[in-house]
């Protein structure tokens, strides 16, 4: 019999929190992006593809330039590049968002795998990234070192969450986003371009998802592997839907799922053996149970997934 106190040792908690942050940050970035585009009425199934492109291009950028920051910039740029397809085809031309989204995800999966096989034949790796340690807070016992010693991108991400919250809550553009998702015709009548509003939203999604992918490759793994996002994009979509447009819920959800993804490692530290398959499906199982219990309250923007065609009824 194992006592609870034996499990929650310092090593266990550190592994759990540090690992949860490491796995949670890419999810958080992508889900934050998806929150923006969903609010504007664009269901972005291509999120996984944007993350993968961000991971590949971001890793290559960091590898060839030698600067981590170039990598992050390149990753965000790659995400925006994929998002441009979505803007052109779905927002501007009004094509089916789901078909285009699947196409982008499949295309990016295949393309990055081919590029990996053709270009990264030496299987290169990046060295450890430099972390920014916050003086004082990192001295807190147990959690200090794991929470307050992170790459600068992590702190910027937290800043980004607050910025999105403020954007939604107190700006005209935030209001336009909501209108584009709930009643685009009204936004158009008010003289604001639906195409432009949705377009910016999708580009923001692309940059955040690309950044998330780049973090996964540069900080998380230190290398690029084909299919390395392993469904993270889809988890992020689910998170964004459950958070219903509230950025701080996205944070909570991402960290929770990040931690449960890391539970395996943490439990090994605590010498408890739970099959990895059980751990892997816990987040999804939790979400399904939540949906079954509270499914009635699920709210999505009224015009989510519907293309806006000016003048059409």
């Amino acid at each position: 019999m194992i006592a609870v106190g034996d499990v929650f040792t310092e090593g266990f908690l550190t592994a759990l929190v540090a690992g949860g942050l490491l796995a949670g940050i890419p999810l958080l970035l992508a889900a934050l992006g998806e929150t923006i585009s969903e609010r504007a009425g664009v269901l972005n199934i291509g999120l996984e593809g944007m993350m993968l492109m961000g991971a590949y291009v971001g890793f290559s950028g960091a590898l060839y330039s030698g600067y981590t920051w170039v990598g992050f910039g390149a990753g965000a740029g790659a995400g925006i590049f994929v998002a441009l397809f979505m803007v052109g085809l779905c927002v501007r031309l009004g094509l089916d968002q789901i078909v285009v989204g699947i196409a982008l995800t499949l295309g990016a999966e295949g393309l990055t795998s081919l590029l990996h096989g053709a270009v990264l034949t030496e299987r290169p790796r990046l060295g450890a990234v430099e972390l920014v340690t916050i003086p004082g807070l990192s001295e807190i016992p147990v959690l200090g070192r794991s929470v307050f010693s992170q790459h600068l991108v992590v702190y910027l991400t937290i800043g980004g969450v607050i910025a999105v919250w403020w954007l939604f809550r107190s700006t005209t553009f935030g209001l336009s986003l909501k209108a584009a998702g709930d009643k685009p015709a009204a936004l158009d009548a008010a003289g604001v371009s639906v195409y432009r509003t949705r377009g910016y939203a999708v580009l923001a999604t692309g940059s955040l998802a690309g950044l998330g992918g780049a973090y996964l490759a540069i900080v998380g793994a230190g290398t690029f592997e084909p299919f390395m996002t392993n469904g993270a994009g889809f988890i992020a979509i689910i998170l964004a839907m459950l958070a219903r447009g509230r950025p701080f819920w996205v944070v909570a959800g991402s960290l929770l799922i990040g931690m449960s993804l890391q539970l395996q490692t943490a439990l090994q530290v605590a010498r408890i053996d739970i099959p990895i398959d059980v751990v892997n499906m816990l987040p999804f199982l939790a979400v399904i149970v939540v949906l079954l219990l509270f499914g009635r309250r699920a709210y999505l923007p009224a015009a989510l997934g519907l293309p806006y065609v000016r003048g059409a009824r």
Partner: protein
Amino acid sequence: MSDTAATESAELAAARPGRLGALADTLVRSVGPVVLALVAGAVILAALGRNPGTFYGDIVEGGLTRGNGLQESIIRAAPLLLIAAGLIVVFRANIWNLGIDGQFLLAGVIVAGVASPLDDALPNGLALVLLWLLAGAVGAVWTLVPAFLRAYYGVNEIITTLMMTFIGINVANLFIKGPFRDFESTNVPQTSVLPVERRLPDLPGTRIHAGIVVALVALVVVHYVMTRTSFGLRLNVLGANPRAAVHFGLSVKRLIMVSFAVSGMLIGFAAAAEILGVWGYVRADWDPAFGLIVVPLVFLARLNAIAVIPFVALLAVLSIGGDLAARRAELPNDFLLVLVGLILLFMAITEYLGRKRELGQSYLTEGLRQSLRRRAGR
């Protein structure tokens, strides 16, 4: 370049009224995206420093002309056809079942785990039929939760079916490592193996198992049900306009549950064909991921269960031949994903252009249209 020009002039020809024009229109809309995707794929291959001609040649050799290439392609087509049949049933009702991989894998694993004991206890033929039905039942059961959530709470089924796939893959692995594990086999956990002579019978004179026949029959049945029965009409009404369906007095909730279950059943059948016909066992972490690559074909065939057959045949050849081509080109075998993604993109664009034309708005500028008309001899 010449392909694009050919497509455009064919589209202009299709603008002429009449049967021939309609046929040409359908052909362009179905074949055009595939041709464009192959051209774009060739550009990508060239950019990667591989010879596209050699690559496509290797695909044809591996999937058609080489030794057992054609037979292997037909064998690969069996599960893909059944998945396509399953997708048509839900897509017609405008329901997105994207949980294909979870339904497929779980059905496959349970069939593989039960196959040997059941086959020992019962006559071979009866056991195979029961296993086939079991696979269908498992596939159907795995759609219950997303179907219920969609039907009663209106929860987006795209997301829930994708999540059920993640759960299904893990549950399948748990089965392989737990109750179905065959400890006498290798280090990698796997189920016990159904001996070759007790699997699905081959067609006389070939290595092709009987699954392909079942798949073709299933497609004909689906086509008949969708076009000639009231159930098919109800699904079509639901797909065209859910509100109208309610006003017609259709039981929308039951329709959603039933179409989801039928879809899962057919996908379970696909797993039965692959396990009972080809593998005989499942190893941990095995996932052929057939799901999303079948989706575009179903759309290219305009949700027509008969028209999907040639597209699946093409995919099967690409899939089997792609293995050889990728090996010779020293690339990972993921070119197929790029190709399928490109087909989807070009399909969406072709669709848009076609719709524009139907609305009477041309997507060409006036001058360009005039010059094309002159060239087309009008």
